[in-house]
């Protein structure tokens, strides 16, 4: 498994753990503790765990004297970024248009919706980029050639 794959795998695991914890926390706060949904949504604070993905370049450092990134890796990276940002932009437009059509042009929405849109977008980008990277290399560790 090469460096890009290891980093993608690390990001994917971190994001999936964060999302799972968010769902569990919201579920526990709503169904077990009995908080109203508005307050139970504070369980989404676990999404902050995604910040750990920033550590991946430190965890998987470049090896000296070894080529860690070639033309093929560059192509895969480009493809993954393109897929991630295409999906992000589609979802971002959707997130902007759906409230407009559901609530009407005169409807209002809480300002908390905007950061949720942006951070949701960030998580989407990281998730899709990791999945496409791993998919392009093949999920098994055969591409350290």
């Amino acid at each position, binding site marked *: 498994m090469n460096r890009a794959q290891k980093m993608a795998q690390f990001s994917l695991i971190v994001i999936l753990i964060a999302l799972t914890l968010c769902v569990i926390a919201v579920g526990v706060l709503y169904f077990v503790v009995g908080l109203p949904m508005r307050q139970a949504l504070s369980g989404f604070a676990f999404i902050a765990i995604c910040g750990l993905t920033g550590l991946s370049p430190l965890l998987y450092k470049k090896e000296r004297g070894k080529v860690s990134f070639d033309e093929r890796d560059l192509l895969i990276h480009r493809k993954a970024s393109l897929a991630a940002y295409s999906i992000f932009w589609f979802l971002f437009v959707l997130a902007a248009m759906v409230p*407009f059509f559901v609530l009407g042009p005169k409807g209002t*929405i809480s300002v908390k919706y905007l950061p949720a849109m942006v951070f949701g977008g960030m998580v989407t980008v990281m998730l899709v980029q990791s999945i496409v990277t791993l998919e392009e290399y093949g999920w098994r560790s055969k591409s350290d050639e």
Partner: protein
Amino acid sequence: MNKTQKGAWFALGVSILLLVFIAIVLRSMFAPGGRAAGVRLVKVWIWLILVLLAGGIAFVHWKRRPSVVDCDERDKCIKKNAVLVSFVSLWLLLIAASIGPWFAVGQEGSILVCLLPIINLSVFLAVMLIYSVAILVQYGRAGKGEKS
């Protein structure tokens, strides 16, 4: 001036004009009783804008000589740097756009839903503008790039 530069000048012009247009429409729409005036403004200008956009795109992509090479390694490198700059600016603008209203109307405040598509479009146009500026700055503004 090569094709990349022509495209960048075109995108720069279009994004500035559209940002100004959005600002004018918003100004008239959010004035008391000015909603109808804003909608009328959009209805009147939208066709002209679309025709100009189509004409501009056709002009940028029109090749006088099919044998001429569109872009080389240097152009690719310039485009790559510009894309990187625009991605960074995209996130900065999105974070600014999401935090700005928070400060403007308070933590428990709310905004009109019609502002969401406007924010969306404005961020897109701003990123397009930054991309074009990044390309033109790298080529040097005076059109020193290879001719096509």
